[in-house]
């Protein structure tokens, strides 16, 4: 049992490493993009496209639509590299939130409401290298795996399906207040797991 879990953790870490590429400085790549260096852009794409695509595909469930989101986000990054504020968190975290928000916009068939310049976030955890990212992913998946079913379900409905808390309450038959509490507590438990 323990060895199976360890194997899963190693697989997760390897997956993140594969998904995020090597360890060349993100800042130097962003500087390259600012200088209109297409190879720097290609390197950023190689590093983060799997993450963005995975989020978009999870939300949209359609490879063509997910590819469109991928294209749209990286083109925006090419056009506005200054929108990324490295002081606030990792590029992977930033891109993944943009990917989720854009995908939800597409899911709701509405005009994109999220400009990459408007997404400001901060992540306490340091994802400076692949090992950090791998460890974080292992913890995140463990938290999600052990989270109570109704809480995980509320969180995923809000995050991956873009439902409002009212819609979630209607779907689950739970009181609004319960849904609110579950969602916040779910997010905080992720934060605590990665910080710990």
């Amino acid at each position, binding site marked *: 049992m323990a060895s199976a879990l360890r194997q899963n953790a190693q697989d997760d870490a390897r997956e993140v490493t594969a998904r995020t590429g090597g360890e060349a400085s993100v800042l130097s790549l962003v500087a390259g993009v600012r200088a209109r260096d297409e190879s720097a852009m290609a390197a950023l794409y190689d590093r983060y496209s799997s993450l963005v695509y995975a989020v978009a595909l999870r939300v949209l469930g359609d490879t063509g639509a997910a*590819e469109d989101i991928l*294209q749209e986000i*990286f083109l925006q990054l090419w056009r506005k590299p200054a929108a990324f504020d490295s002081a606030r968190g990792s590029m992977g975290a930033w891109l*993944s939130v943009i990917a989720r928000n854009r995908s939800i916009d597409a899911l709701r068939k509405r005009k994109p409401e999220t400009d990459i310049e408007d997404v400001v976030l901060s992540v306490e955890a340091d994802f400076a290298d692949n090992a950090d990212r791998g460890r*974080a992913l292992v913890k995140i998946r463990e938290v999600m795996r052990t989270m109570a079913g109704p809480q995980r379900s509320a969180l995923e409905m809000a*995050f991956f399906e*873009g439902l409002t808390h009212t819609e979630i309450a209607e779907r689950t038959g739970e009181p609004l207040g319960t849904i609110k509490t579950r969602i*916040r507590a779910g997010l905080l438990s992720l934060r605590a797991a990665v910080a710990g």
Partner: protein
Amino acid sequence: MAAHEQFAEDLALYALDALDVSQKTAVAQHVETCVACRRELESLRGDMALLALSASGPHPPQRSRDRLMSAIAAERPTVASERAASSGWFGRLGWIAAALVLVTGALLVNDANEKNAGLQREIAGLKTKTAAQEAELERVRTEFAAFQGPEARSVTLEIPKGQPQPQGKAIYVESSGKLLFVANNLPALPDDKAYELWVLPSKGNPVPAGVFRPDAKGSGVLVNPPLAAGVSATGFAITVEPKEGSAAPTTKPMMVGLVS
């Protein structure tokens, strides 16, 4: 400084865009003014990113990478055309060959491809529109950058007393002649009248600096009206003039502001 507890749950929902519209507006307004809640919101977005990391799936297909790099290459504005212009007959033959390939390919397309081409044209049109909007935004940013520079001088124009007070603010860059003027609480005017802004130079008569009519709330704006560069302004004034404007003030100034 801790985030407000009464907003704690709503902040999490706001980060996820899972609030209903009226609640969303209330949280947005609060976050505008509360630093602690804004920081907590940013942290919650960070937590969202952790949740995003839990998503896994196949890698994107190679065609996505090719598509992106082609789109980026297509945004190179002049290099390709310059190369074509300087490449002589070999280059032209290359282009002709490419054109022949395209024509041959075009003859082979089926209905599905034609639909695809239509979509591509639509996408290209949207891209052009987006590029034009971005260019316009950049132009506006550039224009406004001058008003934040060390040379920009800010002058407040107002009537001495009374309620509500009409007020104007002029920001002027002498060397370039750039001028931004914003006014509020202006009385409404008859249809045939307008307000006219004047630059009061150190020597000579007032220089007309644009005509405007206030909106329903009494606000008006002038951005870079035609004005010669290098006019040394000692102040600004507003008068009521015929709607087409006057070459020299015909009424007493209703607002005056002097450069301090």
